């Protein structure tokens, strides 16, 4: 049916974030009863910060990824749908694609669902490949150019792939597709595009349902949503009976997480949303028309890279004494001086965020002069090695207890500590190094598709 005039393609978004926490089964199975062509979910996001991409540590609990993948697989097999999961493991690294493939293979055997054709799409890119592409790169969000030095500072990098590798996997008969880092919209748009439906409508539908319930009202979390693409329109409908889509809820989601509300750019082109019309199709469903695809001259793919900054330790301390609160900058400066005295002036970073004053917005908070009646200070120490980070954290902890400040009341007046131990959230600090577009001559330059039959 490739390139044919398919009547429609129905895509069930099982969860707005697969594996994060288990999705609700009632609305999922109600979606399966609607006989979708695809059961899909996005497992990743840049929102989770650079840590997981750089470190390769798992973002989700494996037991919840197993649960969500097994449920999706059983639902898909029950109605004969294909199953598509993108941005495996949160960051979309190759090792997460391998993990998901193992989980799917185990579920196929355990639940006797085989034989199934299972495709893996890998989109991690090597340092060498990035070096070859320096001349074809341009900053996207990052305010710096991609350079040899930036690549050297990068621990891991992934390409945010477009729809072409998904189309190839479907061409090769995939029942299940597990993909690395992908544009959120394409994994939902892949089947509609593959059967020959309009690319603009398909990608706009994908963008609409990629976060699941966020397109509906009220946005009850972990519920499933159905998107159906027709030759000249698409519809969106939540599957929980207490939720509904309205033109306002669908339009509101069009704005979500993007700078330009009129254009949805991706590899190979842009969806123009200028003339889109949102109509009420039922008391819970919205019909959308007018999303227009424009192909770009060049095929550009976003690269995400993350590099290790150092080991990280945190300390939390608080004050209730109004004099201490009024002198918090003095206390923090005193601690910083002591750290400098012991570990030297360079090679480490120490961030103090004062909750109750301006921790959340820092210098952008004009109400910072109005502290609360109690404050907490989050100190984040980052150093090349764990021993140095621990030294700094211990100096911060001790310094907060022995803080000297003007007007101090007697010998006490040290900070209130939630515990006397140094806290280690995830031990390591990372930063975004690469957030650039790379022009490729072939969409498959930055990814590869492998397909197996799982008996």
């Amino acid at each position, binding site marked *: 049916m490739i390139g044919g005039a398919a009547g429609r393609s129905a895509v069930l978004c099982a969860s707005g974030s697969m594996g994060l926490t288990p999705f609700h089964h009632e609305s999922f199975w109600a979606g399966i009863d609607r006989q979708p062509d695809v059961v899909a979910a996005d497992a990743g996001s*840049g*929102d*989770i*910060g*650079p*840590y997981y991409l750089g470190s390769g540590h798992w973002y989700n609990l494996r037991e919840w990824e197993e649960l969500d993948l097994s449920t999706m697989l059983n639902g898909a097999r029950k109605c004969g749908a294909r199953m598509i999961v993108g941005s495996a493991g949160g960051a979309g690294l190759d090792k997460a694609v391998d993990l998901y493939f193992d989980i799917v293979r185990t579920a196929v055997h355990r639940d006797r669902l085989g034989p199934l054709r299972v495709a893996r799409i890998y989109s991690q890119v090597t340092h060498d490949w990035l070096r070859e592409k320096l001349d074809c790169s341009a900053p*996207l*969000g*990052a*305010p710096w150019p991609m350079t040899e030095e930036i690549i050297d500072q990068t621990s891991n990098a992934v390409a945010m792939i477009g729809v072409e590798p998904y189309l190839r996997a479907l061409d090769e008969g995939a029942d299940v597709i597990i993909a690395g880092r992908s544009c959120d919209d394409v994994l939902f748009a892949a089947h509609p595009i593959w059967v020959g439906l309009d690319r603009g409508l398909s990608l706009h539908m994908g963008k609409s349902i990629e976060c699941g319930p966020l397109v509906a009202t009220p946005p009850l979390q972990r519920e499933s949503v159905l998107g159906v693409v027709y030759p000249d329109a698409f519809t969106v409908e939540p599957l929980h009976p207490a939720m509904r889509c309205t033109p*306002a809820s669908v*339009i*509101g989601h*069009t*704005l*979500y*997480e*993007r*700078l*330009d*509300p*009129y254009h949805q750019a991706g590899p190979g082109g842009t969806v123009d*949303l200028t003339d*889109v019309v*949102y109509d009420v199709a039922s008391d819970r469903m919205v019909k959308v028309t007018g999303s227009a695809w424009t192909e770009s001259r060049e095929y550009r793919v976003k690269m*995400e890279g993350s590099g290790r*900054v150092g080991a*990280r330790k945190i300390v939390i301390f608080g004050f209730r004494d109004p004099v201490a609160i009024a002198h918090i900058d003095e206390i923090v400066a005193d601690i910083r001086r002591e750290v400098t005295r012991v570990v030297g002036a360079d090679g480490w*970073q120490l*961030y103090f*965020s004062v909750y109750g004053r301006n*921790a*959340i*917005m*820092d*210098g*952008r*908070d*004009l109400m910072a002069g109005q502290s609360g009646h109690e404050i907490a200070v*989050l100190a*984040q120490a*980052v150093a090349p090695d764990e021993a140095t980070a621990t030294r700094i954290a211990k100096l911060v902890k001790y310094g907060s207890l022995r803080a000297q400040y003007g007007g101090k009341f007697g010998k006490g007046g040290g900070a209130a500590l939630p515990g006397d131990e140094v806290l280690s959230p995830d031990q390591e*600090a*990372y*930063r*975004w190094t690469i*957030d650039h577009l790379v022009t490729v001559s072939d969409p498959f330059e930055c990814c590869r598709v492998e397909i197996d039959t799982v008996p």
Partner: protein
Amino acid sequence: MKLSELASGLSSKNAGNFHLTFDILFESAATYRRVLDSGRLTPDAVANAYGVDPSEVLAIIGFEPGHAIKINMRRRIASGDPGETDVFGAQQYAPLLELEIP
């Protein structure tokens, strides 16, 4: 009136790893028009609310189909970089609530 009294929704969120986007939603086209045409929602006014240079306010975009106004800024630091306290950019909108619109 304050923007918070005119808007039906106001939120902030990462748009990519280096930018913040603020979405201000209005119930009616009339309120949307009133705020957009007031001339008060300018890069200078937004910059003042955050104590930043107006050049940091990258765009203020009216989105007619959604009766919504979008404001874009660069993040203070890239999301999740050392020193981060709001990795999703979820709590950066509060100063906008107080903007006075005639």
